[in-house]
């Protein structure tokens, strides 16, 4: 039995501690109901597939903070090489794969090989030994504290129930305001 997106993300919210969270795509429609912190950075407007890369850069820049990226399966498939890059440059990055098997906001078309890809095996094969997979809400809830303990990188594959009729979500704040809020929380004063 797969999880509902909201209940899966509620467990992330309960275990994030003080980490930066980067919701992408479909996760943006749910995360504002779970959290409203300066360390929430909604990657929208985005370049689809670049959420893990953005998160890796942020995690390398802020090694003490830790970064959680909420990434869809369609997005990950656009940039599978990111698994190798994350392994090559270890950082405190938690890459949470929200696998609903479909391109949710374009009408629910299945992703290539939908339901037949072992993402945890892909992550392990790319060099990420801390790779987990969860299908049940109860098991994810029970194991999440251990998943979020220790150092990154960590890959978590969550199997979700597809949602129908979703539209492109809107982040709660414009990008410029989000950047200002995040950098203020990180005590970054000057532009790069």
């Amino acid at each position, binding site marked *: 039995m797969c999880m509902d997106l909201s209940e899966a993300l509620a467990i992330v919210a309960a275990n994030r501690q003080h980490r930066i969270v980067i919701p992408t795509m479909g996760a943006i429609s749910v995360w504002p109901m779970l959290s409203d912190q300066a360390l929430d*950075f909604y990657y929208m*407007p*985005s*370049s*689809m*597939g*670049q*959420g*893990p*890369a*953005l*998160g*890796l*850069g*942020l*995690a*390398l*820049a*802020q090694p003490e903070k830790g970064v959680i990226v909420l990434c869809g399966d369609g997005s990950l498939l656009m*940039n599978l*090489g*990111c698994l*190798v*890059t994350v392994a*090559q*440059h270890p950082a405190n990055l938690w890459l949470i794969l929200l696998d609903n098997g479909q391109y949710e906001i374009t009408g629910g078309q299945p992703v290539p090989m939908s339901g037949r890809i072992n993402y945890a095996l892909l992550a392990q094969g790319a060099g990420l030994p801390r790779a987990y997979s969860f299908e049940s809400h109860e098991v994810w809830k029970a194991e999440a504290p251990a998943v979020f303990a220790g150092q990154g990188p960590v890959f978590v594959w969550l199997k979700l129930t597809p949602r129908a009729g979703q539209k492109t979500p809107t982040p709660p704040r414009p*990008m*410029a305001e989000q*950047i200002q809020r*995040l*950098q203020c929380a*990180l005590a*970054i004063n*000057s*532009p*790069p």
Partner: protein
Amino acid sequence: MTGDEFVAVARRLCFSHVILIPDSELGQWEPALQTAQEPTLIRPTREGEGIGIAAGLMLGGKRPLVVIQCTGLFEAGDALRNVVHDLKLPLRLIVGVRSYLAYSKGHSIDSCPIFTEPILRAWQIPYEFLPPQYTPLNLETALTRQMERGTAGAVLIPE
């Protein structure tokens, strides 16, 4: 320009990270970057990914420099658009223009030199072309001009 000379330029301009996907020209800087403590070398698998990493580094207060070939620039269009125009981050690029020297003498039919500048203009990225026998000072001056402008920009290296 040698790898050591490139590292020296990057250090003088306080770049914290160099994000490199090597080609036959730019790849010659890689050994020096590997051994240098600063700037930190990042090796992504694809150019768009490298631009995404640069965006995260900039959000986190660092100053990255992305070094890619023009072929990767062509691939990275959406990441480039997003970082420069949606996030409005001052992305700095060095782009090697494959076959430019041979093409300009009529010795190459490679289409890379035809499309690099129009692509940059289409994405509204200011750029500066270094001369064929460029020096570290040429590169440093061009990058300094970009940083003084405060916007995104690219320095093109003829290959």
